[in-house]
């Protein structure tokens, strides 16, 4: 399934409760969607950079078992964008469901 437009919202959703690093974010999205949302992980980091540029997430580095990892956490603006994204998705999925029910 094509994820392009919804990936930023899914990333914010994955970061809602705790900061995380890129690989874990990707696994969480795939896991919670039970494998339905299988996006290409190479495009995850450009999406994260874009969210960072927009001020919706911020990043920091942590050293873990001798390895430096970059973690991302959601900002206040990011929470607002997530709420907006959820509302828009609810509206869209409601509209699509209505059409499919009628069909």
């Amino acid at each position: 399934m094509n994820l392009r437009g919804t990936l930023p919202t899914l990333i914010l959703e994955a970061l809602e409760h705790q900061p995380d690093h890129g690989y874990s974010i990707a696994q969480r999205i795939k896991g919670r969607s039970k494998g339905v949302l299988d996006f290409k992980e190479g495009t995850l980091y450009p999406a994260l950079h874009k969210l960072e540029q927009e001020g919706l997430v911020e990043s920091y580095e942590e050293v873990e078992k001798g390895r430096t990892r970059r973690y991302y956490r959601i900002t206040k603006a990011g929470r607002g964008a997530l709420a907006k994204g959820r509302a828009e998705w609810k509206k869209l999925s409601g509209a699509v469901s209505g059409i499919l029910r009628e069909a």
Partner: protein
Amino acid sequence: MTALDEWLNIATRELSPESAVQVRAEIEEHYRSALDGGATPEAAIAALGDPKAANQANKKVLLTEYESRMAPVYARGTRPSVRSMVSSTVFFVAIFAWLMTSTFKYGTRIAPLWIVMWSETPLRWILLPTTPERSRILVYAGYARDVIASAVAWWTFDLNAAVIIGVVLFLFRRVLDVPRTAVLQKLEAGQTYSLPSREHELTSFEASFLRTLRNGDPSRKYAVPFLFVMVGVLTAWLPQLFGAILFMLAIRFSVPYVVDVYTPERSRWFRVAKWTLMALAAVFPVLLGAKARWAPAAYIAFLFWLFDAKRISLRRKLPVEEWPKELYL
């Protein structure tokens, strides 16, 4: 080279060195995490997806090599000097006066268009495009000016002229102005760049020109043959006026293939010879008493401005070790 290296080479193509290092660190860490999670190397690479798609996405958010060269020019924020503003204004007024008073058939019709075209210049002096917001304002103001210029062209000429002018202005705006906003956004987001030596002193035209000299702008392979065809046609039509120019161009473009001019000393002699030939090509029609004998001199002045003026400035600003081959010519 491993499969991951191959993937990363494609995914980091045309990115600035700093951006490429950042992408490599992220993806290598991601790959290691995948292997720690039990994935095979092949599965981990497959999960990353198409490196070309990743490269396109990276170029949208990270500085490319070209953008990193333009970044210091965009971010510099210095106004043009008073001398530059005065000379620009004098040039505008002189051309306007000539259009209004000369016997040139279309002078008075082009004059309003000239005013509209120049109107953007003072705005750029006042509103330096050093932030994404200011850059965006200038782009929108520029689009408005382009629409007005098309409308004036329609009013003074016809719809065809309006369409041609509109398309040309739009393309110039897309190529020259719009990328500036993207670069400033990336810089504001914390992207960094580093440049060797004195490249930060270059103007935007010089930086752009240097890039084409270094990377081999694809349009150059058409520009030189087109130049020869154009001068060849002009020579066939007016041999007395343009024959010497054709000869000068033939020497200019053939000598570097025959003689190694790529040392500072030889380059200097080559340029002296080249400019001597240019001067002779300008003077020759005058000596022959040919009609419109000013035309070759004007054409050579245009060629000098197009090809040589920026090179002179670049040679002055850059150390010899950083000269691309084209700068020796």
